[in-house]
């Protein structure tokens, strides 16, 4: 009758705080081996909200996701760029292997419109990825929760870009990645993931040449990975 702890943790759905979650989620590899190894499931999660925190622009905080974005657009799905700082530059996206004809640029007039557009895009199921730039805003937790649910229902990758000041506040998102840069080397740490946080920075290789590396991408299929193997 008595089950040992060792037996219990073998049961499916039982998760210990010390390990990465091993429930199967759909993920898309980012193309950065070190980063993928630290992400639950071995890639950037689809169907959920994630946050990329960064201070300063121009450190490769968008382009390190190029590989994942290209995969998320598979199956004629769109990539929505909502409320971005500047205009996404078409030649750069093309170099990164992101299909331009699936990119949708949305420049809302205010925050409310931006959040609404993000929710609609996620819910519609037409978007594989929705990228949103937004600092702190009113009723933030409730809105993030809504975006999380919309991402689940639309099976889309939702990524919110904001400054690291947001790290002090709790979030309903399932993944939070902090991006920083040393001189020419980009590095990431993962303060929140489905598993123990990763507090030390790990190098995210080739942040500045990833545009070229992501073009030679391996099999063009979404990957379902269980981290327990």
């Amino acid at each position, binding site marked *: 009758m008595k089950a040992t702890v060792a037996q219990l943790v073998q049961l499916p759905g039982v998760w210990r705080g010390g390990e990465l979650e091993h429930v199967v989620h759909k993920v898309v590899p980012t193309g950065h081996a070190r980063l993928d190894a630290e992400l639950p499931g071995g890639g950037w999660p689809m169907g959920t909200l994630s946050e990329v925190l960064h201070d300063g*622009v121009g450190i490769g905080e968008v382009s390190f996701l190029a590989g994942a974005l290209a995969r998320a657009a598979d199956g004629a799905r*769109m990539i929505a760029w909502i409320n971005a700082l500047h205009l996404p*530059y078409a030649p750069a996206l*093309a170099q990164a292997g992101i299909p*331009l*004809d699936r990119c949708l640029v949305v420049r809302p007039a205010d925050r409310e419109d931006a959040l609404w*557009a993000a929710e609609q895009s996620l819910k*519609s199921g037409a978007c594989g990825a929705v990228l949103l730039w937004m600092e702190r805003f009113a009723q933030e937790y409730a809105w993030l929760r809504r975006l999380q649910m919309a991402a689940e229902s639309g099976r889309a990758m939702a990524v919110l870009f904001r400054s690291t000041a947001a790290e002090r506040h709790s979030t309903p998102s399932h993944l939070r990645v902090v991006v920083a840069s040393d*001189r020419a080397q980009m590095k990431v740490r993962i303060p929140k993931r489905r598993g123990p946080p990763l507090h030390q920075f790990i190098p995210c290789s080739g942040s500045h040449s990833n545009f070229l590396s992501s073009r030679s991408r391996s099999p063009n299929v979404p990957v379902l990975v269980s981290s327990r193997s």
Partner: protein
Amino acid sequence: MIAEGPAQRPLVACANRAAADAGIRAGQAVAAAKALAGSLRVIDRDPAAERETLERIAGWASQFTPMVSIDAQGIAMEVESSLRLFDGHAKLTAAVSRGIRELGFSAMLGVAPTPLAARLFARAEVEGRAVRGCLALQDLPERVADLPLFLMDWPDKTLARLTDLGIVRLRDILALPHEGIAKRFGPEIVLSLERLTGRVADPREPYAAPARFRSRLELPAEAEGVEALLFPLKRLLTELEGCSRGRGAGVQRLVLRLEHGRKSHTRLALEFASPEREADFILAIAREKLGRLTLPAATNAIGLRADALLPYVPRSSAWLPGAREQAIEGERLVERLSARLGADRVFGIALADDHRPEKDWKQCHSREGGKPARANAASFRGRRPTWLLPRPHRLVTEDGLPMLQGTLDLTAGPERIEAGWWDGEEVRRDYYVATNARGESYWIYREHRDLSAWYLHGVFS
């Protein structure tokens, strides 16, 4: 209560339940009716409005069968050929009555092999004598036998004489020899009997709806604000959907008119990328647009107009969503976003044939498919930044070196771009990738004619 007849002596044409409970019957003099119920509200009958309403319903009903005709005070639909599509009588009649309810009307349906019999059944139901639908022609004389003659559209005089003879039911008159009836009551009575039983054909002219859509709805009470308009709007859109279905059409441009009293009104145009007709979808778009409006006053009527009904491409016909369905979902998303944010705030991007960074890309109307001008991005020699500034930004320099949050190191370049000498917007620049101590990378350039001036043009995010 609705009145008709000469102005000197108007008669009751129709009375609602409250009036009927007070003892008011059709055919009474209005004066007599007023004596029965003091608070009676009398409305003059408006045959033009009745006809228009029937036409609207007929237009809507054309989605079920192309053979819809207006029949006295109702519509006749020849559904024999549509039965298979709609999976039998029961489902078809259910769909029709549900649809008419959605339009805001109530209808009595009669199902029979001849239009006259169907009309008879429907009227019998109004009188409270429900008759089961009859499908086989040979059963018809039996089914109609017990119905009273006054349900037929015969002159009152004829009906009175028949009653005098003790002929009050169809059973009685069908048993009589036709020659005798023709001689006494006129050949048209015999003809209608033969059409009723299907012995003589009863050809009808199908109602041809005009190739545009116009409908107007007076609201029962003035509506403040926008939310209250959605329900009546749904009715109009349901009607539009029916009409469009009947023609295999959709609308690309719709004008919604909100009337506030006599003088003022608000117009709202809805435009779609491709013809649409699904009421729920159009309603969702209209809701976003309406949400942006501030109405000057309460609304008392709404009208909907589409000047062109265009061929409609059916959607969701496949049961496995593929690239095509995905593309349609995308189109709809773009429409929903543009409806609220404005079309200029939602767009796609594409490459263009030029070497100048300002002109080697373009905005395109989302998804209209800007085919890549250059087959691939290989023609770009150097790396391109994620963001391009709308216009280059002059950088401060120190000892001739560009500064941006610290000194910039040139990590790649120069890449020389010289173009545009042919159109007066000449560009002669050397581009570099520059990184500062914080690890931020920028795309900067300097002009040939002034090598000391540095400009920021992009950010490698």
